[in-house]
């Protein structure tokens, strides 16, 4: 059997852990904030490398972004990905999720053959979780989202989707698109052994709008139906209330307050009975 051909989509995002809020202007300080590979895209890379090492696969990382996003691809190569494609053009700027997915779909077609497309569940700078599903839509592929476990058997995958309160096992025939959640694995570190080769400019194929043969009107901000009107910090309404007195008294007060907020209602809490009896014991 030929090695699987896998494409992993990779986005470069600001490390939101390190984004600070300017106390004076209350706006996000992005200056000096390092750019990283979107965390769940690293999980997707790890899945691709699992296939490479256990099944045999040729892996390609695909990234749309400004020229400096090349460093995300270099890191993917240093983790062990075989090839990298950077989609970079002024015409792509301002793309919403739909146009991003459309542009990526054209790049995937340009790359040609593939058996599996892997995406991170969502990006930490947008949290939409839309690009993967939309990309599957443009390519006419079956999509399985929120994968937390993948089993491989010939040309079918059996995947556990981690949903909020349950798990779903789904079987799918390749080719398919899978978005993976953080819980699926622990992504490896890049290897120092791979760095010299990863940073060889020849390793990365660069594609522009012209290469994709897509008119500018179908790209970027112009083509995007979603327009961001304003970005702001939500006002914080949280306030702390200190309870005082004996521990048992404080616990009783706490439960009363949670009850008043309906936080202990049965549909939320299957342990209501235990809570009640504990309360009565106080």
């Amino acid at each position, binding site marked *: 059997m030929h090695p699987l051909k896998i494409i992993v989509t990779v986005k470069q995002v600001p490390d939101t852990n390190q984004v600070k809020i300017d106390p004076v202007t209350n706006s996000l300080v992005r200056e000096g904030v*390092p750019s990283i590979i979107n965390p769940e895209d690293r999980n997707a890379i790890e899945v691709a490398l699992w296939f490479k090492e256990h099944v045999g696969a040729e892996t390609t990382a695909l990234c749309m972004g400004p020229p400096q996003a*090349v*460093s995300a691809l*270099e*890191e993917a190569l*240093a983790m062990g990905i075989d090839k990298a494609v950077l989609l970079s053009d002024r015409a792509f700027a301002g793309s919403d999720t739909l146009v991003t997915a459309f542009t990526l779909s054209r790049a995937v077609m340009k790359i040609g053959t593939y058996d599996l497309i892997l995406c991170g569940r969502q990006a930490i700078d947008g949290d939409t979780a839309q690009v993967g599903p939309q990309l599957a839509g443009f390519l006419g592929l079956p999509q399985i989202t929120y994968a937390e476990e993948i089993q491989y058997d010939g040309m079918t995958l059996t995947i556990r989707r981690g949903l909020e309160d349950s798990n779903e096992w789904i079987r799918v025939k390749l080719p398919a698109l899978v978005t993976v959640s953080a819980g699926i694995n622990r992504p490896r*570190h*890049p*290897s*120092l*052994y791979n*760095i*010299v080769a*990863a*940073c060889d400019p020849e390793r990365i194929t660069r594609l522009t709008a012209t290469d994709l043969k897509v008119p500018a009107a179908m790209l970027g901000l112009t083509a995007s139906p979603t327009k961001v009107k304003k970005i702001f910090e939500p006002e914080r309404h949280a306030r702390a209330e200190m309870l005082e007195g004996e521990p048992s008294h404080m616990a009783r007060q706490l439960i009363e307050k949670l009850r008043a907020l309906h936080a202990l209602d049965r549909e939320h809490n299957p342990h209501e009975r235990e809570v009640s009896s504990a309360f009565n014991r106080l």
Partner: protein
Amino acid sequence: MATLFLYTARIMDFELTNQHRLARATARDVARTELAPYAQEWDQTMTFPGEALKKLARLGFMGISIPKAYGGCGLDSISYVLIIEELAKVCASTAIIVSVHNSVCAYPIFMLGTEEQKQSYLVPLSRGEKLGAFALTEPNAGSDPASLETVAERHGDHFILNGTKTFITNGSTADIVLVMARTDRTKRSRGITAFIVDKSFGGIIVGSKENKLGIRASDTCELIFKRCTVPAANVLGELGAGLGAALDTLTFGRVGVAAQALGVAECAFEESIRYSTQRKQFGRPIADFQAIQWMLADMATEIEAARSLVYRAAWLKDRGKPFAAEASMAKLYASETAMRCATKAVQIHGGYGCMKDYRVERCFRDAKVIEIYEGTSEIQRLIIARNVTK
């Protein structure tokens, strides 16, 4: 290509390349997950970070600037110092273990070794299958290594080594030790030869681990050579080529230690910023007081100066230019900067700075040791002075 050359020749470029940035990000990432959670405990319990080193080895940390052909990563010296700096920010002990292995064991074998020596020793060292050490210091020969007393006597195609080496980093854990021994009693430094000694040769007694002020997770031991038989094929470089040839390759080690010092200084500084902006006295953060601000300003400035010296020494080496004086300047200034920054950091933390639960307490102890090994500050000044007066 020609235009690129013109471009680079015209400007002075302080930018790191993508390769440098990726090497640094990788080391930072690895230090955060593999060292940070354990470093304090290793320090307290004098535990050698063996498991973490195995992980580091798999990722290439034991052959950073050794070419791929010999099992290394083929990274340049700037990448090397960035990596050591990042490790040291989190765990100065791991940084010195990696630095000694790379720069004063693997690197001299790469520079001076025969093809056969490289295949037998350098390849497993760079792959991290074997750990390296460097043994020069003796009870009676510290700053003055030319007076060393360990002797190597020739018997046919072997040498027999007798003598005592002291304060050897990786002493008990290393598999391969570069040993400096006297092959000619009639000469001083020209009577000294470097040997590649495999611990399995036998005749080496490992003393107990020293209980140290700082850098406590690295094992520092006495090595006693008692009729240790070493094949003549394991002479590194020329017989009696002198300490000079060996010491030349050790210059790179100084840059590594300078990078380690830089990392410790940065850690002390970052902790001080964090603490002084949070700790309130007299109703405001202590960082509002000018006395504290001046300390922070001095730390930031000295760290930038140290960084320039360290990176520049590595940059000179990468360009094949002489860098001995610059390496000494970097080692001297960065280690003294680390000590000054750590002292200020403890001061800024007040009583908390004296507590083992606070990171700066370890910086303070580690910094002092860095001013001493791989040539004390006095010896660095001596080397620099020799260079500027010759």
